[in-house]
């Protein structure tokens, strides 16, 4: 069965690229997309979504605020989250993990790098 993944990024091209990369790496994906944290919270169905891949820098509600909301919600907090971001410093990495992100991928990325993280988080 296809993996139900929510892709959150303010860039439409980046959302396409994430989807394409995962498919190219052989993962069968059923995507649901959102362009910021607010839209993502609205669309996030905890009964169906199996993985969230979220950007950090977004307008309206950024990725970290979105992660905090998901982790603070009893019904949603079990969903694994991968942060996919240009923020590559150790400080940002730790801040993300401290707030409940399961794993972290920096842009630019290769399909292989993303797939490895997805496999790891899904099989945890």
């Amino acid at each position: 069965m296809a993996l139900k993944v929510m892709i959150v990024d303010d860039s439409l091209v980046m959302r396409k690229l994430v989807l394409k990369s995962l498919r190219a790496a052989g993962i069968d994906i059923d995507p649901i997309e959102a362009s910021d944290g607010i839209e993502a919270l609205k669309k996030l169905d905890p009964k169906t979504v199996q993985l969230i891949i979220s950007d950090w820098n977004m307008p309206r509600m950024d990725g970290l605020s979105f992660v905090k909301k998901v982790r603070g919600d009893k019904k949603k907090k079990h969903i694994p989250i991968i942060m996919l971001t240009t923020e590559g410093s150790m400080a940002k990495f730790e801040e993300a993990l401290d707030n409940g992100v399961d794993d972290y991928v920096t842009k630019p990325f290769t399909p292989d790098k993303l797939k490895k993280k997805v496999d790891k988080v899904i099989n945890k």
Partner: protein
Amino acid sequence: MNEKLYQNIVQSLIHAAEDVFKTMIFMEIKAQEPFERKGLESLSDITGVISLTGDIMGSVILSMEGFSSQKVVSSMLGDQIENPHEVVDGIGEICNMVVGMAKTEMSNYSCDFEISVPVMITGKGARIQHISEDNQGLTTIPLVLEDGAIVHLELYIKDSR
């Protein structure tokens, strides 16, 4: 601003641009000698501007011709992209990745700052709004694509420490 710090920023932007083009766009680029220019207008058709705030203040600008932009975004997605909205969005994301990577490299020099989401401007010669404006010039780094087309990566910053 301290000349050494300034050179580090220029170099980190060049490294980031080379890496982003290679990894995401599958294109080699060559950076040419940076030069200074006065003026606040965009140099090409599609321009992304990212503001920096923190230890340094200012903007990084990535500007390219419409034709090159379409080629670059198409190459990144592995698909012929015709929709101008997607082309502009893709250039914004490339700009974001370049500045984000440079930011990470600069954090190794204890120079920390936050970056904005990219503001996109279309049209050559459009006036760019900068976060801090005085009469200092811009540093322009020409990046040459494989087909000879030039992308302009520009830097407008000052030390705020």
